[in-house]
């Protein structure tokens, strides 16, 4: 067979392997899908990262990769020069807009795809960001919610070019088959078997007070009047100032017997933490998508989320979990009480349903469709 002319693709992004977070997870899966489509002999994809040094070769091979380890100036220059050789350049974050804008100006035939995740585009954009939004051939949005925000804040944006491209369960995510609670964690956190566990997984940043764990504490302080057989675990690295703020809230509601701040949880223990819980809760107000929701579901746990952001997409308008008004403490309390009162939860069904909507195979197919649209 004569070698096909393959569309060449360059993916420019910030980080995938040097931090952990929703965007990093998205990028890792994105790299993996690009690699697999290359091995499928459909595209020829390379990637440059401004912060990563080396790729994890599970996701992407090193001969297709260049990492700039935080050397941004050099990254920008190099990316612009090299990008001109590609058919398509994918800009992985709006903060890299300048590169996309210059490429489009020098060589308009290069197709530019811009990926938008969440709050970084939920406001009016200026400068090169605004220009690239208008110039880009396609804009990828991780949720319909983000798409609506884009349209709302950027008048004149062509709706047709915005493609919804939801996040996925990482292809290496170990899907549990038995859904029992891990004993070692019950022991570690000293949780009696009869206690219900509520869980939130998030970075706790003082500057982004939108994740809603403070509201959960307040709602639980109401719930404790009717039942007291529960404990709330908050997993994730906390900034000092945020830690102090949350401790003050716990004091205020006298919830020390009910709330545990776990701190950072290593990736290889993350699934076990999901399994430890009876309900995953995060009534956030500003999620782009909320990958933790679909991870919790993949571990067979019911989810409560807010109804004012991309969480709606992750939970498929409430099909996969319960959506509540994150500003209404009473509604939140009721949702928790209802979920904890459930007699039987079919974990396997939850897992199957979330996979049907968001497994990696579909993610890859979506990428293929996007590239060959």
């Amino acid at each position, binding site marked *: 067979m*004569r*070698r096909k002319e393959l569309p060449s693709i360059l993916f420019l992004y910030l980080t995938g392997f040097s931090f952990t977070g929703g965007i990093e997870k998205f990028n890792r899966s994105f790299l993996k899908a690009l690699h697999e489509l290359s091995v*499928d002999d459909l595209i*020829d994809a390379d990637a440059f990262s401004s912060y990563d040094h080396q790729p994890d*070769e599970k996701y992407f*091979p090193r001969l297709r990769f260049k990492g700039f380890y935080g050397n941004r100036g050099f990254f920008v220059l190099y990316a612009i020069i090299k990008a001109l050789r590609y058919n398509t350049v994918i800009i992985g974050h709006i903060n890299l807009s300048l590169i996309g804008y210059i490429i489009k100006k020098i060589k308009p035939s290069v197709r530019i795809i811009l990926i938008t995740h969440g709050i970084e585009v939920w406001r009016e954009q200026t400068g090169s960001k605004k220009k690239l939004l208008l110039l880009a051939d396609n804009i990828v949005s991780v949720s319909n919610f983000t798409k609506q925000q884009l349209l709302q804040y950027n008048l004149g944006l062509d709706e047709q070019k915005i493609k919804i491209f939801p996040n996925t369960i990482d292809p290496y995510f170990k899907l549990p088959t038995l859904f029992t609670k891990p004993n070692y964690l019950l022991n570690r956190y000293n949780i009696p078997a009869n206690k219900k566990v509520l869980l939130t997984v998030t970075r706790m940043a003082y500057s982004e007070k939108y994740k809603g764990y403070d509201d959960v504490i307040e709602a639980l302080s109401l719930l404790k009047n009717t039942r007291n057989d529960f404990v709330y675990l908050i997993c994730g690295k906390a900034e000092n100032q945020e830690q102090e703020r949350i401790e003050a809230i716990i004091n205020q509601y006298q919830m020390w017997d009910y709330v545990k701040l776990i701190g950072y949880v290593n990736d290889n223990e993350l699934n076990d933490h999901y399994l430890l819980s009876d309900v995953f809760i995060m009534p956030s107000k500003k999620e782009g998508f909320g990958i933790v929701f679909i991870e919790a579901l993949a571990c067979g746990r019911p989810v409560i989320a807010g109804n004012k952001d991309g969480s709606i997409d992750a939970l498929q308008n409430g099909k996969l979990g319960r959506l509540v008004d994150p500003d209404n403490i009473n509604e939140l309390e009721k949702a928790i009480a209802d979920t904890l009162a459930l007699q039987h939860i079919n974990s396997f069904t939850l897992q199957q349903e979330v996979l049907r909507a968001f497994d990696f195979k579909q993610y890859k197919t979506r990428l293929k469709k996007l590239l060959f649209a």
Partner: protein
Amino acid sequence: MCRIAGIISKKIKPNEALITQMRDSMQHGGPDGCGVYINEELGLAFGHRRLALIDLSPLGIQPMMDKEERIVIIFNGEIYNYQEIKDKLLAKGYSFKSSSDTEVIIYAYIEWGTDCFQHFNGMFALVLLDKLTNKLILARDHAGIKPLYYYLKNNELYFASEVRAFKTINPSWQENTDWKKYFLLFGHLPEPVTTLQDIQPLQKGSFLEIDLNTWYTRQETFHKLYYNYTIYKEEEALSLIKETLQKAVQRHLISDAPIGLFLSGGIDSSLLTLIAQPFVNNNLHTLSIVFDNEKFSEKQYQNIIIQKTKAQHKSFLVTENEFKQSIPDIINAMDQPSNDGINSYFICKYARQYGLTAVLSGLGADELFGGYQSFNRTKTVGMVNWLPEFMFEVANIFPDDRRKKINFLQLKDALGEYLFNRGFFVPAQIAQLLDCTERELYNLIDDARLPLFTEKLIPLEKVSYIETNLYMQNQLLKDTDYMSMWHSLEVRVPFLDKDLMNLVYSIVPEVRYNANQIKHLLIKAFKNELPEAIWNRPKQGFVFPFEMWMKHIQLQDNDKRTKTLLKGLDNGNVHWSRYWCYILSQTDKKLKLN
């Protein structure tokens, strides 16, 4: 293991005589039984010849149907994990009337549709008709161990396990005009090339679905070997390899007929014998062949393993005279030309004489674990790539073929590297031998380029890729298949077990290869079992006395070209395999045996 054939055509309305003729051209591959299925309404005929290994009873006979007669299947191969799949299906409420793996395939298809192929670990080429949907499905195993060739044009489909079957029903089937060129370049025919026009093999790890109402076709890959690194530590790799290879060998020993092993005395076959021993107790049969000349014997190494495992070993002698006498039959056995296969021919012949129906072979270990010279050479090849163009032209002036092949490196890609390592004649020579232009040959090479992603594999992975996808796929597996079938023998290849291959492809190259020791992972994983004398010994290639013996084979009217090659064979400038390759390409001339 069997042979299958079929015709779907409303034009010619295939009848029993025609399908029988097609099927029986491959009779040697299925001596234990046969069957046909005709569906006049669809213009469809299936033929099957059976070599029985699992469920020797008449219940295993094919074409086979389910109880409702919705599915009709013909199947060549073995599904080694069929019992596991059967258990899953039983749990879902299915019931079975035979103990054969064929029936398991039928119900697996009914349950999972075309996703069923992902469940199978084995070697197979199969065709099934789904009468409910009027769809026809052709599928081939993950590693392309079993062959399946087909013709699909103008709402007509012909398929068979061997290319000869097409020629049988239509002796004037047009030849592929380029096959000789490919053959002299590669020493085999690289997929999808065959000797006949419009006949191609089904791609490994894929299925082809044809809607018989509309003739809409869809091909999909159900298994792909990815470099999917998840194992970064040697200790982890070693324990997993040990466990997985042991399981693979055990699976490959499943049989209701007598099974044995080829034992050459090298690392791979010794290891398989050592691993197999506990599973077969005192019933371990091994065999090897030796040639006339003592210096080609590997006997001392075989003896170490025989003593250790108490195997019942038989060594068979191939003499110069037998070699000469067998040449016409060897050429006859070759379904497609291949420069290799002579020793496969003899060892399969003797395995059958020994009373075995199936044997295990070490095929695949070199490709997976880095056992070829090409793995060591790849660094140098990388450096040559920096040379300016004119330097390659210089290579043409070397008298011996090996140096001439430097020429191929100017292609500067994976295919060039392959042809440098394993190519036969360079384009300038072929142009002379076949009266064509060099341009035509370079065009063919362009057509045979490997997928682009191979260029971005790291060098050692690239070598593994080309050895697996060119050499093993087009040469070793084909030879092994048709030579074993010719003698009604099944050869099984545990190193190509799906789980083992997936495992090896998940190991990072730093751990997978070691510059100082070939196949270091295999050796280390089995360091307690494998005697040092087997892996730590003076280098000795697998040499045959063919250099001398080849001279017996000549063309009846020795033209100038043959004479020049014969002279080269004499003075050592032409390797015997190149001479043999040329002889095989001259199908229109008669042979003369001196």
